[in-house]
């Protein structure tokens, strides 16, 4: 038999407060703008709150909430069409090229040139330090697919960096 303990309003708030800065950073990484990030997070939180009954196991709160924020960010970007253009990305590269040591990779800065889906992978893996397994749960895609996509993405970024290095 299943024993489902649904999240109460209080429990939802408690869980959310505990990770709110991480959630804010997640939202921020898509737009790099305070107002947009607040809007995304507020909308995502409201949706999560209203549908808290759908979360069947409390231990998945973080996975579930992150997923809602990510999809809310996609929706927001689609709506506002605020894709950061490749030109902006290149400008950004120009400015900070000299600060970047060859051995390290500034993932946060790299986000700018990427599509929303690619950003998600980098944020979850390298900025939030999540495991491949967790990412696979958040995005509902197989773990191996997550790995392949991330490695391919890193290769793509390295190649871009290398071009700029020339």
């Amino acid at each position, binding site marked *: 038999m299943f024993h489902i303990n649904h999240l109460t309003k209080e429990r939802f708030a408690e869980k959310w407060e505990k990770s709110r800065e991480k959630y804010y950073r997640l939202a921020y990484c898509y737009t790099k703008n305070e107002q947009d990030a607040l809007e995304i997070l*507020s909308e995502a939180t409201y949706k999560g709150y209203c549908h808290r*009954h759908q979360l069947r196991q409390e231990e998945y709160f973080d996975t579930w909430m992150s997923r809602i924020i990510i999809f809310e960010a996609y929706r927001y970007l689609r709506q506002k069409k605020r894709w950061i253009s490749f030109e902006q990305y290149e400008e950004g590269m120009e400015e900070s090229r000299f600060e970047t040591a060859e051995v390290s990779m500034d993932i946060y800065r790299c986000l700018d040139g990427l599509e929303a889906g690619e950003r998600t992978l980098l944020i979850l893996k390298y900025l939030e330090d999540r495991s491949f397994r967790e990412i696979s749960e958040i995005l509902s895609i197989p773990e191996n697919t997550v790995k392949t996509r991330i490695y391919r993405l890193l290769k793509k970024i390295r190649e871009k960096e290398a071009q700029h290095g020339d």
Partner: protein
Amino acid sequence: MEIDKKGYEEIEIPQELSEMMAQVRSRERLRHARRKKVTGAVLAAAVLVLAGNTPPVYAALSEVPVLGNLVQIFHIGTGGTATDGMNMTAAAEEDVIKINFALGSSEKTEQAVHAPAYQAEKRTAPDRLVLTVHGVRGFDLEELLLEAADSPYIRDAYREIILDDSAVRVVLELEPDTDFEILEYEQPASLEIHLFSEEQESRDVWFIRSQAMEMTEELALTVEQLSMYEGAAAQTEDGKFVVQVGEFETQEEAEQRLEELKNQGVLDDTYLVDHCLSTERLQ
């Protein structure tokens, strides 16, 4: 590979974040709060007269609007007077659905004194109110169904086909944490369904179900045949319908009942035991 997270870690956390949860909570409360102002007064008089088994949801009262005489308030149950040839019109607001009854032809109508016989049932998976009104020949429900589906308390509203052509059945699928009360008036006759937020338990329910089918006469026939075994039509997640038979707390009880009904020749092998959350539709 060394990861430089400086940029990420330095993202400035705005002050607004500390108030966000409180704002979200009040936004949700607001969405559900407006109803009390409207229904409070209507119910107040009723609660005084007929304390009965009515949940004491409404406290404050100021004035009593002019309406017919209140006959009863109930959650589920039956009422009205056996009649025939009634016309029924209905309109929905965010938190109240009003159903009026009239007699006579289109040229000359007058408001009915007593409501026709009706029954209100609550079913789960998904949580819904099933209202059947008998002795009604004419009705205009299109607008009601459209308006009702807009209500924040209602997930979906539709008319269910039933075999009895002198009756009409309306199904209101409720959003989570929504409850209702029904008020019956006479002189003139009307029914009001009041919707409000109330924490509801969402639990796993088991039942016997048919294969999914479209809303057709076949569905109506099956529901009719199984009505004495607590059969009811339920919408599935993809918009089809199944006939649910009974409602059980455990899988064992449901399996046992299915076996019994199969042995009695009531159900065939296409029926199976299934379960889902009481607030949700079957897959």
